[in-house]
């Protein structure tokens, strides 16, 4: 895997509609820009990118947790996404995100019974990538459905792929649309 750059951002919300959020809600995004080894050619076998996904699950998951400065168990929600430069193929994003990225990411955040929500697209330098978020142990926890926008002015170049992981230690700032609450989640089946 050839990484050109990694961008890690922590965002804190202190106020929403005039109400103080204490402690602030916090989200960390870590994004790697890598060379697409299959740019411009059709390759049937995408194993190489699956391994890349596994390595990035560890690397980016860890960077998010470190940037938040939390113990892994205190991570509350997560998500992942990839944007493939124009000489690649949407399937390249799928190969990175789906087969092998989940297990190491779950290790980085401890547990993680729920499906890791994901998005993928083809795009060019500077385009926004919205990373969907869901509670890490119980996908139905409504307060934690969210998304974080990521973008890098010079990525992805045509032969690159931009891969993002987002981890939070909180849900939305002022959740009040009901549904399953974090404190009531069992976290056994990944759903409730």
């Amino acid at each position, binding site marked *: 895997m050839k990484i050109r*750059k990694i*961008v890690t951002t922590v*965002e*804190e919300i*202190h106020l929403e509609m005039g109400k103080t959020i204490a402690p*602030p809600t916090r989200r960390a995004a870590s994004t790697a820009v890598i060379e697409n080894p299959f740019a411009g050619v059709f390759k049937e076998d995408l194993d190489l990118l699956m391994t890349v996904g596994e390595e990035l699950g560890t690397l980016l998951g860890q960077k998010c947790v470190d940037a938040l400065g939390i113990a892994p168990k205190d991570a509350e929600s997560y998500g992942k996404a990839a944007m493939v430069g124009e000489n690649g193929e949407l399937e390249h994003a799928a190969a990175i995100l789906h087969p092998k990225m989940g297990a190491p990411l779950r290790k980085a955040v401890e547990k993680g019974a729920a499906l890791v929500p994901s998005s993928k697209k083809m795009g060019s330098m500077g385009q*926004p990538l919205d990373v969907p978020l869901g509670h890490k142990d119980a996908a139905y926890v409504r307060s934690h459905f969210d998304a974080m*926008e990521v973008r890098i002015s010079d990525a992805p170049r045509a032969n690159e792929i931009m891969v993002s992981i987002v981890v939070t230690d909180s849900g939305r700032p002022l959740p009040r649309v009901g549904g399953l609450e974090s404190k009531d989640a069992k976290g056994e089946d990944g759903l409730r």
Partner: protein
Amino acid sequence: MHDVIVRKSFVSVEEIFHEGGPVAQKPLLRGIVGSVIKNPFAGRYVEDIVGFMDDLKPLGMKMAQDLIAALGGDASKVEGYGKASLVGETGELEHGALWHAPGGYSMRENLPASNAIVPSSKKVGGPGARIDVPVTHRNASYVRSHFDAIEVGLNDAPKADEMLVVLVMTTGPRIHNRAGGLAGADIIGKDGLK
């Protein structure tokens, strides 16, 4: 005196390993710290605004220290810097200029040998607007290897009555710098220029 009310804040660190050339021994770090604050002068013309610079000083100091910490905690490793402000739509470009003193001095107080003027940009824009923050060497503006810029923006800021204030720092020259000129190693470092 106006309260400085922060709605959101962020810190971002970019690690650059290469840009198509040889992989650097040590990645170049480019860090950004930003705060979205309420603009106390939004929506009307206020003649006397200059006192808000003093109000912003504690925020500037905290932001500079947070950014140094995010870059590893050693202020001597910071080599380049810049600042910017993005004013929401019911504000005025002049409000963005209030970041000059608190933004600049906060970095220079926290960094060693920083005689160079802190380059800056400012504009009026809405949520999602992007601003390019210029970067130069902290001790000698003419150091060519350190001329750079970092794009900053947030999808949800600045709202009409807000301002986004930004500081940026870098830990070295552009990753494959080879455009000649004054080198960081050759500066005198007295006048802030050479």
